């Protein structure tokens, strides 16, 4: 309750303590090194410490906490995926998300809004029904709805048939939510640090030490950083945007293309839009944050780039379509645009689990859907690292599937990134 705020008003000194103590030095050795201090890395550290008591762990990040895609995404959480593997995986993530504020003692502003994926073609209607059926099979609350119902759920949408691509239907996903992305990472980081995990910001991994490399992947023994070399038992990389580069340090080649995804926000507005709206055909998604900003994005950039520059074309295209759905927003002002670097895989599903290198694990290929997977990744990565067994929930996402041409079918659902 709000009594939590009393101490701030009544105490003489600011009563909060440091959440992420900065250890001065790296220890010579850790049981486990997590490369990447974003949501996935910090969540992995948190569950390792909380659920398995493994705390001799270092999280290394070349920048600041959650400075990559964790802090750049549009914070949409949903589980309305197409494949059984995807639905079950993200469903667990949502269940974990719902408890996070209380687990952390930090409000992640998790806000269940309902999520509408609009269909503008009959082919899209078929895909939406497919997703709805798979979702329902696993108890996930998704339904195919048609314009009369959409009008009730979201009267703010332009449902006229006098537009170029009229809305024919939508996948309505009741648990669709948004949250404060940074807070998720901070909560995990603070929770891990409190339990003894060391978080080293501004510490860049420049190499990975292996032994027994002889035509095989060998075994990992340590990590070289710009602050010195450390020995370690196991290593997991969770470095969206730089996955191929870090994996290359152990000779691992990935099926990933690094492609920017741009987003933007409007000036803060009084609340008028509750639902999260996505249109694959129009390459648009939008939600209104608790601060009142409209948080918006579209599809990924047209070519690969290891950079986060913005483009004019992105927002021109986005706004053209945005105004088709919300014509009355023409005078609303855009405040800021930015970009993140996404790991796009050919089958729009992640790469998780073991690698051909012993003791080296991967958490990559998160494309435009990494934020929503943060809790389940952390929990299952931790289980894998602690037990040495790959949990069933993440087994389908192995790197090996690409070598065997056994791609997952998620592509059918992810026509727009977010």
């Amino acid at each position, binding site marked *: 309750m709000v009594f939590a705020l009393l101490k701030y008003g009544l105490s003489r000194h600011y009563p909060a303590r440091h959440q992420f103590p900065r250890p001065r030095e790296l220890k010579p050795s850790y049981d486990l090194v997590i490369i990447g201090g974003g949501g996935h890395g910090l969540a992995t550290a948190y569950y390792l410490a909380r659920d398995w008591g493994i705390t001799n762990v270092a999280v290394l990040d070349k920048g600041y906490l959650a400075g990559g895609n964790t802090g750049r995404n549009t914070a949409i959480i949903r589980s309305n995926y197409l494949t059984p593997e995807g639905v079950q995986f993200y469903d667990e993530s949502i269940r974990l998300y719902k408890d996070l504020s209380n687990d952390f003692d930090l409000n992640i502003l998790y806000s269940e809004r309902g999520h509408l994926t609009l269909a503008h073609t009959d082919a899209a209607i078929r895909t939406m029904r497919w997703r709805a059926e798979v979702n329902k099979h696993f108890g996930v609350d998704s339904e195919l709805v048609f314009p009369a119902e959409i009008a009730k759920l979201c009267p703010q949408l332009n449902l006229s048939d006098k537009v170029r691509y009229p809305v024919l239907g939508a996948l309505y996903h009741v648990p669709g939510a948004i949250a404060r992305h940074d807070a998720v990472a901070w909560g995990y980081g603070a929770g891990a640090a409190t339990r003894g995990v060391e978080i080293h910001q501004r510490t860049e991994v420049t190499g990975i030490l292996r032994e027994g490399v002889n035509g095989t992947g060998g075994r990992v023994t340590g990590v070289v950083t710009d602050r010195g070399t450390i020995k370690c038992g196991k290593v997991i990389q969770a470095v969206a945007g730089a996955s191929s580069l870090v994996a290359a340090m152990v000779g691992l*080649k990935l*099926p990933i293309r*690094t492609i920017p995804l741009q987003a933007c926000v409007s000036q803060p507005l009084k609340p008028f839009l509750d639902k999260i709206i996505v249109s694959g055909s129009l390459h648009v998604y939008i939600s209104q944050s608790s601060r009142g900003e409209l948080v918006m994005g579209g599809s990924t950039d047209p*070519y690969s780039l290891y950079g986060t520059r913005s*483009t004019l074309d992105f927002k021109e295209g986005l706004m053209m379509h945005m105004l088709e759905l919300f014509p009355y927003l023409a005078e609303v002002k855009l405040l800021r645009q930015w970009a993140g670097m996404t790991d796009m895989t050919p089958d729009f599903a992640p790469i998780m689990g073991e690698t051909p290198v012993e003791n080296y694990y991967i958490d990559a290929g998160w494309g435009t859907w990494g934020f929503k997977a943060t809790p389940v990744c952390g929990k299952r990565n931790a289980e894998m690292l602690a037990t040495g067994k790959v949990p069933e929930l993440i087994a389908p996402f192995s790197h090996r599937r*690409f070598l065997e*041409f056994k791609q997952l079918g998620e592509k059918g659902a992810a026509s727009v990134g977010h």
Partner: protein
Amino acid sequence: MKILNCPLNGPRNISEFVWGGEVRTHPALDCSDAEWADYAALENNTAGVVREWWYHVPTAYWIIAERDTVKDVIVRTYPARELFKDRVVFEAPAKQEGR
């Protein structure tokens, strides 16, 4: 908006082009499955100067560009024939008759 200098059409907005990914070397037909997967499924995803395919949509023309994927700078562009000079022949497997 970047400008890409098409060897056929001169400098054009990059929005007129479609990115075709890294130029790869097709393995021999008797390559191993692993070599095939490396070609057909995996990506170098290089950070730095990469040789890439680009397609100018209005004139339906594939070109090769050398692009710095970190600096977002196009270093050089040239026609594909500079790299692919000769007719590629796929030999029929030995047990089969050629045409």
